[in-house]
Each structure stands twice: as C-alpha cells, then as structure tokens.
C-alpha cells in the first residue's frame, strides 16, 4: 500500500479487470456475482458503444453459418490457434445462458444451435446467435413482408438502400422477403442533424412517439413487419418497443446502424448497473500502464489518473483491453506489435518477410490474428507455453488467433472468454 497518499489509496481487491467492453464486464460481473470484490479500470467505454448488441458466436466460416453448435468443433479443428479451440461448446452455451439471465430485461432470444438471420443497415442477412427482443422480429428465416422506416434528420440509416439489397438476398430454404420503405418527418425542432442517441432520447418522450405513431400508422399494410433504425429509446427501450408494437398492431424491430450503438449503450448501462449494485468499483477514464509483482505473481497494476499514479492490488487480474481497435494492441511505425499494459508476448505475428497487410481490402491480412496467446486457464503464455503470471488472465479481442469482424464472432468470443476467465479465477480461489 502506498502510505504517502493516505486514505486516497484504494483498498485491495479480489480481482481487478482492465477494460470495460463486453469481455471485461462479463468477467467482472461473474466474479462480483460470486461475491468477489472487483474493480474495473477502463480508459473509456468499450466496444459496446460501437457494435450492435447482438451476440455473434460464429456467423461466417466459408459461408454463412447455420448452427454454431454444429460448426464450431470443425471450425476449431481447422483453426488450432483460435480462442474457440480452448472454449468448449458447453462453456459457450453456459456463457450464453448466463448472459440471457443477467440481461433478462433485454429479453435476448436465440441460442447456440441455430443462428438467426437479421438485416444489417446495408441489407445483408447476417447470422447471429442472440439478439435482444427489440431485434427479434427481424429474423429473416421465415421470410415476410418488411417495411423499413427512415427519419429525416437521421443520416446514419438509409432504408431504401437496405431494402433494395435485402429484397435481392437469397435466403435459406427459399424464404421470400419483400421490402418497402417509408420516410417519416418527425418534429425535431430547429435541429436538422440528430444523432442516433439524440433520436433515442426523443423516443423516450411520449409526444414524440405519438407523432411517429400517427404518421407511420397511415402507411402500414396488414401483416407488415416494421423495421426501425436502432434508436428506440435508451433506458426505456423495452417500454418504447412494446408501445410501438401494441399501438401499431405490427411486429416491430430495430436494425443496428453506425456507431454510437444505442443497443450497445443499453447493454453497457445494464451490465455496469448490475456491477455497481454488487458493490464493484468502476473507474472509467484511467489508463493502466504498469504492473507490480514478484516472480511470476502479479501484485498490482499502476493506473494513471489525473493527479498521480495509483496502484490497484488484487489476487487476480483480467486483461480485457481489446485489440488494435481499442489500443489493447499497438503496432508502431517500425512494424513492432506490443501489448502496452504488461508488455506480454504477442503471438500470431506475420514473419519478418511477410507483408502485414494485403492489397485487397477484403483479403485476410496477416496481422489480423496477432494477439496474446493463453493457456487452458486463460492465462497469457510465452513462446514456451508457460504462463507469464500465474494470476493474470486475458480475454476478448486481445486474444490471438481470431478475425472476429470477418467471422462474426466478436461478442461471442468476448462473452465466452470473459466467462471462462472468471470460471478459472473462481476455481483457483
């Protein structure tokens, strides 16, 4: 303990989690649920605010994946360095169940056996394992007559483009989809440029909903399924969505669109709220840049705050700082890849003569699978397979071996690896 700073020095914890994306929040919440004293230290909000709140476990292998449960064993065999190789189907299934229970007021639907197909904002039918209830009516597997709603003043959603593509998307089993579009001009006051979160706040206001309902009601035809951009409220989303369904008399769903992700913000708020209720400490706006330890045991991490460095001590630590997108991995101008918090060994790097990037944007780039390799207990390992610290675990996009944005595996990996690390910590204690 740092005596010089007296009472400002934080107490020591059972576990310190670095990073507040889905992987970090999952590990932290599971540990907190089991009675551990947990601190989450994060530089900022995580990828929750960028990604749709769907749980994509495995969406694409060679082509779209129908059943992750069926495809995963083969997928793991073909990709021996992939994190899914270490995460059993049972564990992934348990993590999904845990997540659904923990986010019960989001009403997540789906599971590991059968992917749903939901439209992206460009009209691709994307496979995903779990969706919040506000997105469930989008499921394209049965086909249907869809109408997509745009709003004047919302530049992040173009329903006509979405509808054009979706109508031409071949669906499994020959399910038939028809699409059409309506653009509404709800009252926005003087504002002409309203963000997704701006619309979400407006949807929490009854008079705004009334004007949308009045305008939209005139356009709907019986049996149409109504797709909105994912802006249907923040804390009150469930109520907003239910009201729209009830009052319109149609199934209603949300389509994820450009960041900031409104459904992702809801997910973050629910998980961090649950953490706080369980007494966990959440520090957002602090950068962890150093470790204290003896031998192969980590004693504490040093966080930079506005004033001075602070050491957070704990029995176990979880690294959930993300990949290159989040700064959890860094590539410098000389081509060196670093994990900046613990300077952990980085695996999955291209060879010295191998180009880091291909010329085709959609090609797979050699550097994409770079990251931290871990053992069966989720602990970062060196080239010999030895854990770097006996009490440090790594989760989420920091891990090597995956290309989550191509595989549509991002949130699935974060959830399962975060869950697995918490299990390993709980077992060890």
């Amino acid at each position: 303990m740092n005596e010089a700073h007296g009472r400002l020095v934080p107490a020591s914890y059972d576990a310190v989690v670095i990073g507040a994306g889905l992987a970090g929040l999952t590990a932290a919440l599971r540990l907190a649920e089991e009675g551990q004293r947990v601190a989450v230290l994060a530089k900022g909000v995580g990828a929750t605010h960028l990604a749709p709140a769907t749980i994509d476990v495995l969406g694409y292998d060679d082509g779209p994946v129908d059943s992750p449960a069926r495809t995963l064993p083969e997928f793991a065999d073909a990709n021996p360095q992939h994190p899914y190789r270490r995460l059993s189907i049972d564990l992934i299934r348990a993590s999904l169940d845990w997540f659904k229970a923990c986010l019960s007021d989001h009403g997540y639907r789906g599971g590991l056996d059968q992917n749903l197909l939901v439209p992206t904002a460009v009209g691709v039918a994307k496979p995903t394992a779990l969706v919040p209830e506000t997105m469930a009516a989008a499921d394209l597997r049965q086909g249907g007559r869809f109408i997509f709603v745009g709003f004047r003043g919302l530049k992040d959603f173009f329903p006509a483009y979405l509808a054009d593509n979706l109508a031409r998307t071949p669906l499994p089993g020959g399910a038939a989809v028809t699409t059409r579009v309506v653009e509404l001009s709800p009252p926005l006051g003087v504002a002409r440029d309203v963000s997704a979160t701006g619309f979400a706040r407006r949807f929490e206001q009854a008079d705004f909903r009334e004007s949308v309902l009045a305008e939209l009601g005139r356009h709907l035809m019986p049996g149409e399924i109504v797709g909105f951009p994912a802006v249907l409220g923040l804390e009150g989303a469930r109520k907003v969505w239910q009201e729209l369904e009830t009052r319109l008399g149609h199934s209603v769903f949300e389509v994820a669109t450009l960041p900031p992700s409104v459904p992702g913000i809801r997910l973050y708020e629910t998980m961090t709220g649950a953490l706080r209720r369980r007494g966990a400490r959440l520090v957002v706006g602090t950068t962890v840049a150093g470790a204290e330890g003896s031998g192969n045991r980590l004693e504490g991490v040093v966080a930079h705050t506005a004033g001075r460095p602070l050491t957070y001590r704990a029995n176990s630590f979880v690294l959930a700082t993300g990949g290159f997108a989040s700064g959890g991995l860094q590539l410098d101008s000389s081509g060196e890849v670093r994990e900046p918090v613990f300077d952990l060994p980085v695996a999955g790097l291209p060879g010295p003569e191998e180009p880091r990037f291909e010329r085709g944007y959609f090609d797979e780039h050699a550097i994409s699978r770079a990251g931290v390799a871990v053992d069966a207990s989720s602990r970062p390992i060196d080239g010999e397979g030895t854990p770097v610290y006996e009490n440090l675990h790594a989760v989420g996009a920091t891990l090597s071996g995956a290309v989550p944005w191509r595989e549509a595996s991002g949130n699935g990996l974060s959830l399962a690896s975060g869950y697995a690390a918490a299990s390993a910590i709980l077992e060890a204690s």
Partner: protein
Amino acid sequence: MPTLQTEVLVVGGGSTGAGVARDAAMRGFATALVERGDLATGTTGRFHGLLHSGGRYAVKDPVAARECVVENAILRRIAADCIEDTGGLFVSTPWDDPGFGDDFLRGCLETGVPVEEVPVAEALRQEPRLEPGITRAFAVPDASLDPWKLVSACTRSAAEHGARILPYHRVVGLELHDNRVVGARVNDERNGEELEIRADIVVNAAGAWAGQIASLGGCVVTVRPGKGIMIAMNHRLVNTVVNRCKPPSDGDIIVPIRTVSVIGTTDIQVADPDELEVTPAEIEEMFDEGEKLVPGFRKARALRVWAGARPLYTLDDVADPRAVSRTHTVLDHAKRDGVEGFITIAGGKTTTFRLMAEHALDTVCEKLRVDRPCTTHEQPLPDSEDERFYWLGARVQAQEPVPGSEEIICECELITRRHLTEAIARRRPTGLDDVRRRVRLGMGPCQGGFCIYRATGILHAFEHLDHQAANASLVDFLQERWKGVQPILYGDQLRQARLDDWIFQGLLAVGHLPE
C-alpha cells in the same frame, strides 16, 4: 460510329489539358477535351499541392524559377478560390549546409523570387513545431493549391466558352491522313461506345502519358516519368509551406493543404506512369526526413501514401531525374516528325500549367495561321472572381450562423448533405470516388469510416442507382481508400482502420452484399 467535329482536340484532363482547353476555348476555337478517367486523376491529382514561389528552383533551375514567379502572381489573381495563401519558409536545419542559404538568397534575387530572410525566432514563433535548431529562415510566397478545384474551375470556364469536356473517354487511336492527324477515336469507358472526334489540330497534353499518345501518331516523345511519393498526415503539422533550404532532394517539403499536411517527395525514374509502386524504404525516408523538419513527425498519424509521376521530358539521357529542368517544351510534330496537325506539350508542372497552355495555343494559332491573343491571365476562373483566397475555416464559417442546421455527412471534412447532393447533381458521377475529389469526401482522418455508408445511401437515392451500382461504388471506395492506407498503417491510424473494419465488415457485413 458517332462523330464529333471540333477545331482543337485536347488529350489529357489534368491541369495542363484543362488549361489548354480553357485557353483554346477563350481564343474562340471549337474545343473538345478527352481524358481516360475522371478529371485530375493523373499527376495533377497526385501532387503535394504546392503552388511554387520559384524558391525551390532558384539555384539549380533558374528558367523554371522565373516562370514560377510570374505564374504564382497570375494564379493568385485568377485562381484565388483554389489557393490558400499559406506563405512559405525555407529553413536551414542542422543537417543542411548553412552556406546554401547565401546561394539560395542570391538565386532568388537573380530570378525575381520575392524573398526575405526572417529571424529564426520569428520563424519558430510562426511555426512552433519546426526543428528548434534551424539556423536560418527565408520567407517566400509559396502557397497551397487544390488541384481538383483548379481543374474543375478551368474546365467549367472552358465549357462556358463552348468547349466539350469528356472525362472517361480514352483515346484508342489517332486518325492519320497523308501524314496529318485529322482526329482521334475515343472509347467511352463508362459504356464502351466508340466516338470519332475530327479536329484541325490535336494537342497532346497527356503529361507523363504523352509518350503513349505521341506513339499513336507515329511520333516518338521520350517522357521519363519521375515517380514521387507523398504522405498525408492527419492534421496541419505546419500552417506554412516549409522547405529545407538545400538543393532539391527527397522529403524536403511539407505542404499544409486543407485539413491535412503533405510531405514529399521522392524522384525515381520509372518506365510506366501507371505502375507506381510505393516501397517501404521510400516511406521510411519520408518519416526520417519529416523528423528533421518537424521533430516527432513519426509519432503523428499518417493518413495515406500515394505516388505521382512527373512528366519529365528531356532529349538527353540523364542519370539523375532531378537534373532535368522543370520547364516545358512545345513540340510541333510537323517540324519534328513530319506529322501535321499534332503538337505535344511536354514537361512542366502544375504551378506553370497556364503558361504551358498559353505556349501550346500560341503554336496552335501559328499553325492555323490566326492571330488570337491569350487572355487566360486576365480573366479569373469561376468562383475566383472576387480574388478571395480559400481559407481553412471556410466550411466551419458556413455552419456558424445556425450550428446543427444542416446534416454533416463527413465530419472530418465538414461536408453537408446539401454540399454532397449538389456535387452529385453537377457531376453525375460514376461512383463515390468521383465525388470524393470534388468535395474531399472521406479524405480526412477516418478515411471514410463514417461517411461512406451515408454517401452511398444518398447516392443510391439521389441517382436512383440500382443495388448493384450502389454496392459497387461502396466496395470500390473502400478498396481505393485501402490502397493508400495499407502501406503506412500503424499506430492510431491502424486503430482507425480497425474501427472501420468493424463498421464495414462486422456491423454492416459488406463482404456479403448480394449479387
């Protein structure tokens, strides 16, 4: 085959061709311009954006320097909207021979480049990020020049004087009749249709590609394309054009242009101006040289890298491309090769494009035996009539009266929905990449991460594109951006690129768009 009749046919839609078309049309000639791609996509759209004061050439290339002095002053009058009056500095860094400053000063005085030595402290006050160890600094009237605006303004002016401007028309053959070029066969690259253009005279203004066009007329013009690479950094590291005060060499200029700053350049002779490989060694050299002008350069965020091909022309075989004068020559193929009705304007650079056009048209007048004086130096280009220079705050200023009153489609470059739809309506683009050059769409720090989806949606609706055309435009734009990003992808720009991957491949799954 449809036929178009004209007096002057200009081949090439860079600054030279656009200048020639404008000059020809203003002298009263029926004029047509053909360009194989979009306007300003060859060398003009790939230069660093420097309007030379002449200082760069003052010591080694006095002819080019004198031309720059005159043309710089003319362009400030006629093309103000394309110019940001940044001013320029030549500084002696600790790595440069301090004695060169005297040569430089003498060269400037001899060639008429306006120059003033400024105290080092003042130069550092003006540009605080400059290397603090500089020993001398000289102020010159360098400026930054927006090449797309320039070419667009020239071709609009030409069209106002009756010229036909035909981008995406590739010359596939020249029609020869009794040793006389009487026209050209061109291919409309958008629909594959051929068109015959009959002309009294063909002006080859194809720059680095002039040798290829000349050979279609059976003439040999030895262009030695000089490859130069440039790297755009994500913000304005300097607000003044900064040059190393030393003989011209690699990576010795940083040009602040619009929202970015561009470091350049290299000079490597290449065989084919369409094959411009950017090598890691060249990139490293730019970073190393950048550090000498602006310490910490390497830690700044590099947005993208590209290469352009200087249209160097010389009769002699030379080892060092930098030894070739940057002035220009008008080649009359009648005198030179016995082919009538065909001239080539060879060499030169964007700063002197107007003078090149004037010289080309003087030759045209001479050959057609008419006496029509040049007026391009007197009449301002469209949007430059009030002689007000462009300034960086222009787009912010336009938003200021009522913030939030317009949708901003590209936040990096402050492009509004209205601005974008106007550009689409004016250009009838084949894809987003054409719109990009008009309004700088996707050219800021996020390299299109947020605006490409929006712009695709707007283009799809506005032009009533089918899903295939809209998808092709989206995918092509992503590929085009990637090309310039991937060789320099590291640090925070990799973070940005990875966020873009999450948006386009993760969130939108554009890799799985329907056929």
